[in-house]
């Protein structure tokens, strides 16, 4: 199930090709993307995100305390 969530989050971020860097930080994924405009916020929320903060190519996805584990799952998909 964790893998499925990681996959859905990655897809909503524009796929592996759009991810420059991603890291988990306690409650959120800090993502540096090639193109921040393609992020699908609705899909992120459907995948369990509590909130999404965008600042250009840097997107923070608030996923709760499993952020570190989810970031590792996403790393495995890159």
């Amino acid at each position, binding site marked *: 199930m964790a893998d499925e969530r990681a996959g859905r989050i990655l897809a909503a971020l524009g796929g592996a090709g759009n991810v420059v860097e991603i890291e988990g930080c*306690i409650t959120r994924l800090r993502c540096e993307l090639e193109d921040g405009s393609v992020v699908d916020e609705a899909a992120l929320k459907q995948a369990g995100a509590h909130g999404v*903060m965008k600042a250009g190519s840097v997107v923070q996805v*608030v996923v709760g*305390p499993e952020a570190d584990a989810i970031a590792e799952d996403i790393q495995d998909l890159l």
Partner: protein
Amino acid sequence: MTGVERVVWSPVGGTVTALADVPDPVFSQAMVGPGIAVEPRGGRADAVAPIDGTLTTVHAHAFVIAGDDGAAVLVHLGIDTVKQQGEGFTLHVVKGERVRAGQPVVGWDPDAVRAAGYAPIVPVIALDAQQEALRPVDAGRTVEVGDELFTWSG
């Protein structure tokens, strides 16, 4: 967990501040849970465990302790302090370690955090709790490290 009332103790000494006043929407909008913040007193000190439990997440600037009943508390030392990459933070514990409330977890210096351009405020979050399950002490009050910060029932 019905009927349980946990006491969450302050990890730092300072001034109790409403979570809404923390300059980070993840905390101020209680996205990961309700809680309260402490504006820490300056000077190098140890941040301590707010509850008994197991350290499920440990970073230099933040940690999560899960109690045996599963209730987990997040302590975040300053805002955006991940960017300091651990500089000035001294971990006394490792992930998976069991700690007692009041046990030193991380040594740090709020003044140094402020000097580096970050807010040293310390949100203490009851992860995935309901707002009404918490009874915090009043904002504006001064707490010492290890004083009661809020009770968490349910």
